[in-house]
């Protein structure tokens, strides 16, 4: 297959040559590796890469990916890092409007006119910078003769990938992993991985999140070797009996098996390590645990995030370990009862939640393990029991931390297109995408699948969220249908359907609003409500705010169908720079970089300042979130 720059313009081309999305399980060669949390099947490619920047597609180096291309005069860039933080492109913050507002007239392909593909909209655009990356690497010695893939955990917003001059594929969906099989083109000695990243593509219409607009490789890049018998995808389905006493465990896998005769040892242990189940089975199409009955299971919730341990060890026919896959899972039941109350393990669910963007004032959405751990500590300290991953999937470690710490997760898709239907505060969906535009449907369903397949085993996730502020139409309905077709154990959430009630019986298990006043919530709940109610965003903590929270907390006692909400939001998005006058470290926001049009300080809505210190309002959150905890 030959790459085509015109894919940038085509909403129907969003993944080419990529391996299918799969669960986020790790696999190791030994228990020592598990204990050290280091898999020798993984070779990190993070670090210094060669780099060339072009201000637009027309000025890019056309043959930079060639095996014999002389890249000696390339610059160097840190991976992962937003290209803007390396000073090639410029910081720009804007909320609803697209970043090209006032500069370039654009309408989404096919949105206004089914026959207009808007050819060249991004592939020939003067505002579409390009990052060309080259990484030369030697394969780790223990990767020899194995299948090897490259995994990008996050790249904004469109990427073409080559190995040793051979085209591997193309990816969008910036916040879920993209994997490409390197095996056919690997060579002895030095290999050359070439990655071409574009800031804009049709994905930009779908990724209009209210945040600084970055591009580049911003999460880890890894080479992953694949054992001869390998669990490609793991699906764990723990369910509970009606009386919530006993559990049933179903496990299945998708396998890649190159060598026959392998055996899988499957075990389940409780949190104390006591083995509850052990089985051995030959490795064929799938490793399965079918309807394993576990009596008197511990339930998983915020206070007791009890996790069981599933371990699958695959041995070759001589008994050598090929891989060990550990995964923690929990038993919990989320449902809407006959009174339209959201119940978790038979008890009413009260969401004491926050929205959390990934943010570090030194590196943008490149967040560290320490950042994530600090955020979890802040949650626990302040009685925050739930997080909405606004408005994209986070670093996968975040979900594991939520599992372990009992933080309920609303796992949101990478989707926000408010600029296509919110115009100067009015609902004006004339060119909304995805809407019901057929050419945009597959892309958004793919985003739903990526989110689901990656994260489906996390005990902490109790809601899937279809995205944010994207209006509603057939395409988002198709996302809903996808989730319903694969997962009966969680609820599906989407707020945007309240803007287009025609779809309210087809989209979202809950009535979700943002910034509804206490009186508006009462009005809904007093008038024969169809669905339980939650606030996916409330208490807009911009600057000195968060007054009047009592009126929301009071609703909890009054209305069982009120499930609480997620405060907007967790942390200010500002960037630390050295002040040009004093040299002191200061925090800067939209408009401070001559970035126009901008929404300026509107990204400063956190319970935390951008430097991860708490705002004074946090004590109020701690108090009120401690009331129904």
């Amino acid at each position, binding site marked *: 297959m030959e790459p085509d720059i015109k894919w940038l313009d085509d909403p129907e081309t969003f993944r080419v040559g990529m391996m299918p999305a799969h669960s986020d399980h790790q696999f190791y060669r030994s228990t020592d590796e598990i204990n050290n949390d280091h898999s020798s099947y993984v070779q990190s490619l993070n670090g210094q890469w060669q780099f060339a920047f072009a201000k637009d597609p027309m000025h890019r180096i056309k043959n930079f990916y060639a095996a014999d291309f002389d890249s000696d005069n390339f610059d160097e860039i840190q991976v992962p890092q937003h290209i803007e933080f390396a000073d090639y492109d410029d910081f720009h913050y804007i909320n609803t409007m697209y970043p090209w507002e006032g500069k370039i007239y654009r309408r989404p392909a096919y949105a206004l006119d089914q026959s207009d593909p808007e050819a060249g909209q991004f592939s020939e655009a003067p505002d579409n910078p390009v990052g060309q990356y080259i990484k030369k690497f030697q394969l780790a010695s223990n990767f020899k003769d194995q299948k090897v893939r490259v995994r990008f955990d996050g790249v904004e917003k469109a990427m073409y990938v080559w190995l040793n001059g051979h085209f591997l594929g193309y990816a969008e969906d910036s916040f879920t992993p993209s994997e490409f099989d390197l095996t056919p083109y690997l060579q002895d000695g030095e290999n050359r991985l070439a990655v071409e990243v574009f800031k804009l593509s049709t994905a930009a219409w779908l990724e209009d999140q209210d945040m600084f607009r970055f591009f580049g490789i911003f999460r880890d890049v890894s080479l992953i070797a694949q054992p001869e018998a390998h669990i490609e995808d793991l699906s764990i389905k723990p369910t509970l009996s009606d009386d919530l006493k006993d559990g049933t465990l179903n496990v299945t896998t998708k396998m890649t098996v190159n060598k026959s005769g392998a055996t899988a040892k499957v075990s389940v242990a409780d949190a104390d390590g006591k083995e509850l189940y052990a089985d051995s089975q030959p490795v064929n199409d799938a490793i399965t645990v079918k309807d394993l009955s576990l009596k008197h299971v511990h339930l998983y919730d915020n206070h007791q995030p009890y996790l069981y341990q599933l371990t699958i060890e695959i041995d070759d026919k001589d008994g050598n370990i090929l891989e060990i896959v550990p995964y923690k899972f929990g038993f919990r039941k989320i449902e809407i009862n006959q009174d339209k109350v959201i119940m978790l393990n038979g008890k009413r669910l009260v969401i004491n939640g926050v929205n959390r963007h990934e943010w570090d004032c030194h590196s943008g959405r490149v967040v560290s393990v320490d950042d994530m751990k600090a955020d979890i500590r802040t949650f626990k300290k302040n009685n925050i029991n739930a997080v909405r991953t606004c408005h994209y999937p986070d670093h996968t470690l975040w979900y594991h931390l939520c599992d372990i710490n009992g933080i309920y997760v609303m796992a949101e898709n990478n989707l926000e297109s408010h600029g296509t239907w919110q115009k100067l505060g009015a609902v004006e969906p004339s060119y909304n995408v995805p809407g019901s535009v057929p050419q945009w449907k597959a892309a958004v369903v793919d985003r739903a699948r990526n989110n689901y397949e990656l994260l489906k085993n996390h005990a902490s996730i109790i809601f899937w969220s279809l995205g944010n502020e994207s209006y509603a139409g057939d395409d988002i309905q198709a996302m809903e249908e996808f989730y319903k077709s694969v997962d009966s154990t969680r609820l599906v959430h989407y707020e945007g359907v309240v803007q287009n009630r025609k779809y309210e019986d087809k989209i979202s298990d809950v009535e979700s609003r943002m*910034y509804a*006043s206490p009186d508006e919530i009462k009005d809904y709940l007093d008038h024969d409500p169809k669905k339980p109610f939650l606030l996916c965003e*409330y*208490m*807009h*903590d*911009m*600057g*000195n*705010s*968060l*007054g*009047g*929270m*009592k*009126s929301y907390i009071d609703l909890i006692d009054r209305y069982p169908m009120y499930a609480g909400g997620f405060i907007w939001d967790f942390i*200010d998005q*500002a960037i630390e720079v050295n*002040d040009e*006058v*004093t040299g*002191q470290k*200061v*925090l*800067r*926001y939209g408009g*401070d970089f001559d970035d126009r049009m901008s929404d300026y*300080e*509107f990204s*400063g*809505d956190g319970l935390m*300042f*951008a*430097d991860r*210190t708490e*705002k*004074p*309002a946090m*004590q*109020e*959150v*701690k*108090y*009120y979130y401690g009331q129904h905890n």
Partner: protein
Amino acid sequence: MDNTTKQLHIIYGDGGIGVGGDDFHYIFNYTRGGIESMVINGREWMYREPKPTFWRATTDNDRGNGFSKQAVQWYGANMFASADKVDIKINDQLIDFPSAPRNNQYSNHEYADQVAIIYHYATLTTPSTDVEVSYTVTADGVMSVHVHYTGNDQLPDLPVFGMRFVLPTAATGYEYAGLSGETYPDRMAGGIPGEYRIDGLPVTNYMVPQDCGVHMKTDWLTITRNATKVSSDHSDTPFSIKFEKDGQPFAFSCLPYTAGELENATHQEELPLPRRTVVSILGAVRGVGGIDSWGRDVEAQYHIPAGKDIDFGFKIRKV
């Protein structure tokens, strides 16, 4: 004759009235609208005369819901407040205003148990309303401040109402008995009652500087400085003053900046170098709101309606 009964010594000046005791001396200016000098143990506490304060630096929510536009009259009233009339009471008796030459009847040996100076302000609003601030000094040097705002329902809701004191140098810190953290009427449930010490004069690090640092339900506030502006004074020995409740608890903020200075900055680093201490003792505080930041009003019970009288008081004493 010595002041053996520890009465107040009164100086009936031409430009103001002085009131003194063993370790304090206060001067109330007749034309500048308040206390020009408040010396305790030889150290000056006033930079400029305290005035009623009507404005808080626009918060993000105030901007979003248009409150600052609605209330803009109070911005001018805050900036340019001046008293147009002064009354004096000696031992609780109103006297004929002792202007020159009427004050020639006095001497350097005038004493009383209690002196009250009452400043009458007409707010620079349309329509105007009255604010009366009285300072009552007793022989122990304690100053009781009483503030009265006369309601006028033709005026917009007030952003805040209180007295603003500007002290000559930046405080090294303050202590208070009240609620933890920064609290407002609609955000104080999480405040834990106790006694707190704050080092320096922290300004809350909001991305855009705005009203901040309010502490509700306070019983007392002690402010400590270690420098004066006296050229020969090189001491850095700490010295303090105490504001305490007189009846109801008060709210306060203690910052290095006025509302006007905060209002003008778009970033923290644009604020001036801290040089002074701005103490606002507040009788009424508007809530901050939080439903959203682009239109929703603060809940009605946390407004300061202009039509209702506001009356509060507090005491200032040496430590």
